[in-house]
């Protein structure tokens, strides 16, 4: 999890998860449709404002943005050198800033660069939207939301929630196993990449067998708490859905429809 849920008294935290999920969906659809850096820039700006409203802990995600900066620059450079710009509508599609090789070969195209810039911004958009969603909606509300969906069986909901809850347990087990290896004289940080990966193999067996044992124990505990009962659960927690949430939800739906329509008319396309 990039950023964990925190209980806060902000507008976003108080909103119905359905509204926030739809908002995130809009960002994802926009990232698929849009190729224009200005549109992507505006959306990114909007997400930053929403992050501020939600008191988003920027410091916790800073490392991730730093890590992906290299692939992002790489994408822009590759697009600038290699994109087939004939498909673009922008007037910059034929602007060559310089050539890498003599004889006017391998030109650095401004249109390609802008396309690459938009692609990079789309990565940030999606990551930020999902991170804000995870930060403002509690996992518990997520699961409640899923359990309301007609086709989601209780088993499916349970698998989802158990997986979510057991991630930290598995992470802790991995850390312990790696620590145990170090205390047995294994230099995990030395050697070439292949060698380092090979050194991790011994932890696979205990990790798997421990996980299987944990799984067995969970199944046993569930069984002892009537999980296999034939009766259908009627336990659905009421969720707050105010008039404001309702209005916002429909507004976002209209926005989504408009965005798709505008795309078909050429808006958002470079």
């Amino acid at each position, binding site marked *: 999890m990039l950023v964990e849920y925190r209980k806060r008294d902000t507008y976003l935290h108080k909103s119905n998860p359905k509204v926030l999920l739809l908002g995130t969906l809009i960002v994802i659809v926009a990232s698929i449709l849009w190729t224009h850096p200005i549109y992507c820039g505006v959306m990114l700006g909007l997400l930053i404002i929403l992050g501020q409203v939600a008191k988003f802990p920027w410091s916790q995600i800073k490392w991730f943005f730093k890590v992906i900066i290299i692939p992002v620059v790489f994408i822009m450079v590759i697009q600038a050198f290699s994109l087939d710009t004939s498909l673009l509508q922008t007037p910059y599609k034929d602007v060559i800033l310089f050539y890498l090789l003599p004889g006017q070969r391998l030109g650095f195209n401004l249109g390609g660069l802008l396309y690459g810039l938009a692609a990079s911004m789309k990565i940030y958009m999606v990551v930020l939207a999902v991170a804000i969603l995870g930060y403002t909606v509690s996992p518990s509300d997520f699961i409640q939301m899923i359990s309301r969906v007609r086709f989601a069986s209780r088993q499916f909901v349970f698998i989802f929630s158990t997986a979510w809850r057991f991630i930290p347990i598995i992470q802790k087990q991995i850390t312990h196993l790696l620590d145990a290896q170090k205390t*047995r004289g294994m230099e995990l940080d030395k050697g070439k990449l292949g060698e380092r990966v090979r050194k991790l193999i*011994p932890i696979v067996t205990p990790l798997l067998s421990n996980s299987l044992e944990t799984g067995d124990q969970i199944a046993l505990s569930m069984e002892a708490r009537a999980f296999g009962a034939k009766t259908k659960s*009627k336990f659905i927690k009421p969720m707050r859905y105010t008039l404001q949430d309702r209005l916002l939800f429909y507004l976002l739906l209209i926005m989504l429809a408009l965005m798709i329509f505008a795309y078909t008319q050429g808006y958002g396309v470079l």
Partner: protein
Amino acid sequence: MGTIISLQDVSFNYEKTKRKVLKGINIDINEGEFVVITGPTGAGKTTLCETLNGVIPNFIKGDLTGTITVDGLNASKTPVYQMASRIGMVFQDPDTQLFGMTVEEDLAFGPANLGLSFEEVMQRVERSYNDLKIGDLKDRKPFELSGGQKQSVSIGGVYAMLPKIIVFDEPTSMLDPIGKERVFSIVKDINKQYGITIVLVEHEMNEIVKHADKVIVMNKGEVRLQGSVEEVFSQVETLKELGLEIPQSIELSTKLKENHYIDKVLLTPAQVIAACNGFKPKVQAPAATPAVPPTAGAGNGRGLVHDPIIEVENLRHSYLGDHDDLKGINLSINKGEFVAIIGQNGAGKTTLARHIIGLLKPNEGAIKVNGKPIAGRSVAELSREVGYVFQNPDEQIFTDSVEDELRFGPRNLEKRPEYIDSIVDEVLDDIGLSKYRQVWPKYLSKGERQRLAMGSIITMEPDVIIVDEPTTGQDWRETLWIMDLLRKLNQKGKTIIIITHNMEIVTRYCNRVLVMSQGEVILDGTPKEIFTRRDKLQEAYLRPTDITYIAQNIAYMPDDIISVDEFYQVFREMME
């Protein structure tokens, strides 16, 4: 009150094995009783519990014969979910029993499975909060709770299903003393106040004596003893033969009875204190004698010369940066010492130990091992000098056979093959696993796996061995086995550091005790010195052993008694 659980001639063997794990068990339990089942590891206690709610044979397959009747239902022929509203079950590991994202959801899990309406489920959740006094945990995430809190929530989840019986399978074996106290107090309350029948599997005899109406002692799949606490604990020889711990109050009162000071065996410390306070000593208490267990060195107050092997200077550490988890520790441990670090969970014991092996880096301060600073040295490099045995052996056993496991460390240290062969043979003997040389470690018992984990460190021949909670979840026989092994290593010159919650092994084996509380070492001394400092122990939420507690509450006895033999010797001298 009528019989609520009845087992008649019950035998069981797991699928694909012929070995009977239960052999002709006959037990009757009355409604509202508090029954404790005890016995050494492998006695069949857990298997017996799993037959009560039908998990065996419905979920875990095998051949079950005989009749098991629980609240009028045939347990082996009734679906487990149907049994669940009559008989609840709480297991050892709380992490695998919590299913909700919040405590509230977890408590609601069982009742929701029964198909109750939202309102009914919430009523039961509220009842769990109130009756078990866990309302303070309402909005917390289960995985953020302490061990004791988690186990309280899992009991709450079972309680919310309103069963008539709750079976507890070693519910406190993974908890610290505060957690244990919390859980035992809940278990006692739901039995005494709400009339729920309790079946508790437990190793800790001191707790059994305090709570049980009836005790069942099992061994090798059979019931060896059953009856009231008095009846069972009067069979001291049988209990010793089975390798079970005898509570110190019973051990002492048996000695007093054998020597005609009292006329019956007394069960609890309170009873012994009352009886002993009735005597008038003829002479005053002799001057305190140092009862320091034998160690490798010789010299100062603890029997050692000043020859530091570990030096810790102003060690500070903070996990989250908002507060110090270690607050400037200064410490020196001499070669050949046998040190116990005690304190509640979160006191900083493991954090301190992990710094000594280099798994954690200090925010401030320095550590030296054998006179050399450890800063800049890798954990692997340090492992030549300091060995670390983790609390859970399953998190440090990697290989496919016992022998390979013992070879893993010395091979990483690039020791010569002939040397590895000889040390592996030697250690296999020392840890008593020679006959399991080629066995997959998962097939060993928990005690044997703990020994293997220790053996895997011993083959690396470090000067210092740190063992994090070596006896957690072990029966008494295995506890003594492990501690005797550590004593042998200490006598060979190794410096031993254990982290433990078991005060009796501290007084039996260690010559120095460090008491930690809130990131600080608040006491440092011999067991005798430590256990007389009642104020400081209370500050760290610790209690001395029962025998020290008894002595401290008898007006004429010295405060620093730490063993039953010592108590009896002093008592006899004063009375004759």
